[in-house]
């Protein structure tokens, strides 16, 4: 792990910057709070403070700096606040509790995995169709690109309602929205991958008079593996975003998306940050997992 040193340094730098930024981000609310509690702050008028620069305020009220790290509704929570909330909601709570982030993480993860499976399956099928049918290639591809310019957050509620109306509820609608986001990278990658064999490799099969399906299983599919894994990594991250987006209109405010939503609704910034961090950890782990599968598969195929 020769990257450990640089990564740790960068992380340390980020934390340092983060800690440094906290007083400036939080000074105004902190001063208002302190003023209410009877402290003397300069300037003593909240409207003047609103229009003043944070920099000047911190300088003039340096006594307030410690308090900026312990706000209930911080604009920027300090790292240790997020960490202790994460600890509380993951380790300290029973994982079946609705207050446990593990519980919510699992809800999101299950939708993500199902959606990823659907999206990957659909993506591969579509790619196979595109590679084998010129009509499909020419007509579908431009619209697949256009489909990605549609803001998913706008149509997610409609998808949920429409599926609802035909009796599909629960995990599946969320998974479908998650699939909508993850299928595109898979299509693009797989089309590239299935077309990766060069003319010579294709001609070789022709000299053997191989059938189309033999060509698919013995040449196109194996040749597409590196591309498949590259797009799976993008796809799984997209699937996670999709699952989180789908949780907003899915009702019940369950899952990491629900946590972010209710966090925002009740002004609990720390809760949003914890959910965010956990989502990023989830995404990174999923990508790592796929990377592992990639290394194993490609190694067995002799491609590394």
């Amino acid at each position, binding site marked *: 792990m020769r990257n450990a040193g640089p990564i740790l340094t960068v992380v340390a730098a980020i934390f340092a910057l983060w800690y440094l930024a906290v007083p400036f981000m939080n000074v*105004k609310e902190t001063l208002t709070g302190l003023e209410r509690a009877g402290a003397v702050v300069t300037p003593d008028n909240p409207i003047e403070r609103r229009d003043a620069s944070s920099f000047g305020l911190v300088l003039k009220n340096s006594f307030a700096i410690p308090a900026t790290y312990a706000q209930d509704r911080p604009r920027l929570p300090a790292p240790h606040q997020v960490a202790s909330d994460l600890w509380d909601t993951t380790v300290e709570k029973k994982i079946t509790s609705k207050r446990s982030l593990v519980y919510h993480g699992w809800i999101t993860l299950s939708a993500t995995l199902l959606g990823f499976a659907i999206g990957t399956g659909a993506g591969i099928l579509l790619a196979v169709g595109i590679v084998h049918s010129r009509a499909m290639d020419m007509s579908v591809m431009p619209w697949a690109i256009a489909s990605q310019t549609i803001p998913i957050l706008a149509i997610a*509620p409609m998808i949920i*309602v429409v599926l609802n*109306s035909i009796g599909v509820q629960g995990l599946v609608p969320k998974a479908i929205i998650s699939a909508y986001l993850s299928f595109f990278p898979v299509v693009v990658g797989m089309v590239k991958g299935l077309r990766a064999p060069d003319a010579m490799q294709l001609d070789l099969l022709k000299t053997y008079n191989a059938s189309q399906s033999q060509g698919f299983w013995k040449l196109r599919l194996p040749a597409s593996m590196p591309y498949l894994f590259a797009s799976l990594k993008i796809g799984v991250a997209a699937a996670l975003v999709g699952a989180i987006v789908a949780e907003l209109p899915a009702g019940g405010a369950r899952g990491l998306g*629900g946590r972010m939503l209710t966090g925002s609704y009740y002004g609990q910034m720390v809760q949003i940050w914890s959910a965010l961090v956990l989502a990023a950890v989830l995404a990174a782990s999923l990508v790592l997992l796929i990377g592992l599968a990639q290394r194993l598969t490609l190694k067995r195929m002799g491609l590394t």
Partner: protein
Amino acid sequence: DGHANSVKLQLQWVTQAQFAGYYVAKDKGFYEEEGLDVTVLAGGPDIAPPQVLAGGGADVMLNWMPSALAAREKGLPVVNIAQPFKTSGLMLTCWKDTGIKSPQDFKGKTIGVWFFGNEYPFLSWMSQEGIPTDGGPDGVTVLKQGFNVDPLLQRQADCISTMTYNEFGQVLDAGVSEDELVTFKYEDQGVATLEDGIYALEDNLKDPAFKDKMVRFVRASMKGWKYAEENPDEAAEIVLENDESGAQTEAHQKRMMGEIAKLTAGSNGALDEADFNRTVATLLAGGSDPVISKEPVGAWTSEITDEALK
């Protein structure tokens, strides 16, 4: 069939004491007593209950009347079958130090408003006051406010929309004292619109079996509401148990229940025609782009409550 006794209720927000009556009725077995199997579907900022109703995802919904009437005009004939909330909890909350004392002082200020159908009472109010809503020194700058109170706390807005039972409490929880604030209840300004009514689809109501189901539903729900009013702490506990997000706190829900009880207090479930007419008048008066353009017909019925309250 099985549907004869099952009811799906679509809420218009996440699980909280605002909907205590229904959770209590379910939890205390009032629905069961009526032979009903009720599913309560929580909502959220991205859920439009009328859409869910139209799609068949729910049998009844809770809604604010402006939004319900708008849906009617858009060709979705929803009908108010009961009105457990008598008074409106909507208000504007402003910093006192901005110098705002009366609505006329809004000129030149920035105000956070909930959209999603809830902007009409505000626009109607401003047009009554003669204040344009497109910014400038003589008008107000309107922000589409998210569903939290940070814009006020961080002074991105001078006033924001709050509900007496929820956001206002959050402002106070943030350490702000009431004498730092000025509030304008829509109720006091004469622009209140009916909130949290129970609506069903007109077509469904033509079916006697469905109607009967609604009668039983409303009866049990009102029983739940009255129980909640009398036992606010227990009701808050029940709500907490049903919260799937795990984000609500006991203190918050208990206070909310107390405030909600004030709004439901005056209602036995039946819609007061005067309230309806005032709501319609407010909406028809609303500015250049009114939410409804003509007097709605058949937008409410007393048949269900008449039967339920017999």
